[in-house]
């Protein structure tokens, strides 16, 4: 049985699954329930200065649904904690005392002056918390006041505030990054340069969910008016994975420990983050959609997976897929795949045919000898994976590698050596061999 015990920046937890700083970690009652359910740690909902901020007393959340109203994407406009600082600090102290084996990290957000950070950081440290997470990511509300994403979007500010936090702190400092930027590397680098012990990402993405079709006003609204919120949930995972992988595969940032966040719903999502370079993961939306009980599948599924892979710890998995991530220009253009439809599994829905016909390369039949029959025309197939992506039957369409011989599409021999765009004759910027 693999050992899920986790150490991130020296912070111990019985498993690598922490609740992200968000509504589920707003107060002791919730965190107690989470720890009872088996969560490895919690990042306390972001603390700010007193007097505490206030939240709207109307809709804070909305969702985008898949089949059967399964929540695929989620949006929130809740701000940081709306309770007095002392209340939070007292509860954090008690929680850490009651749950010494769990990770308790405190998220913080303060205005851009050193004195404020110097005043509050020691008060938080005094609770016995295991670490600090600097919220430079929230895209709504607080960013209008020069905090959250407003800091995270300017690497110089981010570095400055990180330095203030590090100056005042003795416990590890994690910088939480916003995805609302063009390139994740400069803020990650700034965090490192500011002395951060690690980064966590992603925070939520600027978003408006939809309009109300009756009133033709933004939905959801507060008394008829709405504001953009932060988008999260399963739908954002690919965005998060890319940013995690970018940090993990770039020489200047690859040594920064990463806490992965963004749409993790079951253990497979966590495997994605670990394999692409995260050392632990944080989760919010899945808990807000299904409750804390999901921790059972997360831990059990991950443990079983590690056993199946012959791994004894999560550490063995971390970063395993990072070497497989590269730039487009380095992809082997001599590599040829063709789709193959398993006729035993095919239910003849024809979706592969119509999408290939309408939007791709006209490489799938709709009938053979007058019978409804879907098969790949190798002479047309560019191996794009569209049919695999849309087929409703798991495993029915797969990709087959043509290692040698002639590619029926081009009529050319498939070269055995690799060749990429940097050396391609059509590339005016090619490097001469």
């Amino acid at each position: 049985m693999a050992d899920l015990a986790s150490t991130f920046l020296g912070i111990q937890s019985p498993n690598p699954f922490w609740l992200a700083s968000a509504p589920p970690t707003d107060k002791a009652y919730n965190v107690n329930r989470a720890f009872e359910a088996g969560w490895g740690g919690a990042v306390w909902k972001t603390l700010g200065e007193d007097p505490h901020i206030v939240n709207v007393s109307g809709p804070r959340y909305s969702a985008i649904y898949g089949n059967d109203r399964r929540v695929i994407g989620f949006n929130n406009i809740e701000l940081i904690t709306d309770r007095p600082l002392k209340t939070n600090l007292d509860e954090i102290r008690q929680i850490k005392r009651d749950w010494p084996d769990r990770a308790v990290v405190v998220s913080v957000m303060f205005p851009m002056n050193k004195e404020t950070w110097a005043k509050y950081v020691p008060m938080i440290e005094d609770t016995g918390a295991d670490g600090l997470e600097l919220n430079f990511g929230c895209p709504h509300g607080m960013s209008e006041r020069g905090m959250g994403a407003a800091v995270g979007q300017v690497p110089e500010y981010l570095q400055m505030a990180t330095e203030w936090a590090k100056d005042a702190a003795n416990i590890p400092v994690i910088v939480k990054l916003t995805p609302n930027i063009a390139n994740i590397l400069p803020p990650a680098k700034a965090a490192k340069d500011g002395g951060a012990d690690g980064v966590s990402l992603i925070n939520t993405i600027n978003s408006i969910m939809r309009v109300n079709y009756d009133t033709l006003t933004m939905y959801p609204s507060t008394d008829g008016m709405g504001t953009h919120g932060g988008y999260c949930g399963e739908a954002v995972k690919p965005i998060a994975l890319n940013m995690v992988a970018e940090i993990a595969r770039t020489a200047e940032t690859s040594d920064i420990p990463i806490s992965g966040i963004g749409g993790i719903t079951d253990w497979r999502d966590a495997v994605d983050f670990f394999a692409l370079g995260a050392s632990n993961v944080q989760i919010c939306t899945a808990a807000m959609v299904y409750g804390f009980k999901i921790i059972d599948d997360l831990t059990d599924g991950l443990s079983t997976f590690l056993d199946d892979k012959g791994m004894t710890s999560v550490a063995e998995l971390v970063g395993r897929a990072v070497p497989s991530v590269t730039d487009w220009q380095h992809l082997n253009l001599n590599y040829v795949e063709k789709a193959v439809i398993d006729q035993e599994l095919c239910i003849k829905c024809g979706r592969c045919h119509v999408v290939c016909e309408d939007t791709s390369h006209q490489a799938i039949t709709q009938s053979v000898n007058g019978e409804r029959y879907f098969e790949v025309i190798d002479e047309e197939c560019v191996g794009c994976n569209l049919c695999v992506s849309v087929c409703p039957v798991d495993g029915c369409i797969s990709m087959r590698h043509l290692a040698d011989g002639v590619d029926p599409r081009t009529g050319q021999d498939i070269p055995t050596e690799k060749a990429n765009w940097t050396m391609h004759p059509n590339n005016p910027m090619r490097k001469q061999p």
Partner: protein
Amino acid sequence: MPDIRANRLSREDIDSNFGDLHPPLSRPEALIEADRCYFCYDAPCTTACPTGIDIPAFIQKIRSNNIRGSAHTILRENIMGGMCARVCPTEVLCEEACVRNTHEDKPVEIGLLQRYATDPVLTDGTKLFARGEATGKKVAIVGGGPAGLSCAHRLSMLGHDVVVFNRDAKTGGLNEYGIAAYKTVDDFAQKEVAYILSIGGIEIRNGIALGADVSISQLNDDFDAVFLGLGLADVNSLGIDGEDMAGVENAIDYIAELRQADDKAVLPVGRNVIVIGGGMTAIDVAVQSKRLGAERVDLVYRRGPAEMGASKFEQELAQTNGVSIHHHAQPLQVQGPNHVTGVLFEKTVMDEKGDLCGIGDTFTIPADIVFKAIGQRLKDDVIGEESMQMQRGKIVVDENQATSIGGIWAGGDCVVNGDDLTVSAVQHGKLAAIAIDHHLRA
């Protein structure tokens, strides 16, 4: 003494027995079911639908909460999409073709979704179709059933004036008189007729019978075109001793009486009932007899379950309602002497040539009532036209429903390719209307 009486069951039981066989889907149920549709290309369900409804399209519109658009997608191909949603044997049509059968052996509930999409439009009388620009042409339609009404509605959409000559007191044909009551509750058949007629341009003349009150040649003279959508009014006979005895009845007559009864509890029903036949009418009369309180209902069919006209679902419906189905037995004699007391049957087998033959093994089933449900045919001489090409007692038509006589089209149960389904009759009427329109504009 035959034991035939009314009020065998309490009023509550009767009400419950004649409530909706398949209650409508709630909104959550409909959305969950709609999500199961794969939106197939060149969808097999659409190919399987005799009227060619674009089923994935209407289901997608349910998903996007475009219910009116969904109803339009259905009704533009099949103006009786509401009734068909209730009575179509979907298990041998669209739902049999559903690719989910291959994936998981459970098709999308297309019939129930179709009802979900069309019910609001019919309940609210939402106008989805408009009369076309008037052509000044007049078309006579004989028969106010599915074929005739479908033809009338399409002709009106195309701008023609229509007069429907209908034998019965009410419009609707078998939708009104022939279908089991629990499949079309709350007077749905009349609501649908009203919706169809609301397009305008359709005059209904009820109580006018072809042959007796009006002739084909007269209609052909008086109108620019004629469509024959008449039903099969005569019942096939068993051809056995005692067939005329009291207590031997036509299933279709009893079903019609039941459909028209405001209070079904007062309908007399036998303690022991025999139904002879294997089609939908046989199942309908058997199940309804049981639901009226008959103690024992025996349905006897001379061939096997695969040869029955009733679908597997219908056969199982009969069985779960407590009807005993006897296969491979043919009636020899109705036993009496004054009123039926039972029927003598003989076991049958199929010989090498596929012909049915008795094997001499006989048995008697007791009965207070015997229902004959072995098929119907056109009333003798109802056509009254020597030159009308007929085959096995039905009208021969081409792929556009044109008969052998110029200016006359036909569809529904009265034509050779008629198959006793509302949905096929609707398609015939639609095709004929399009052909008539081409003819009138030529």
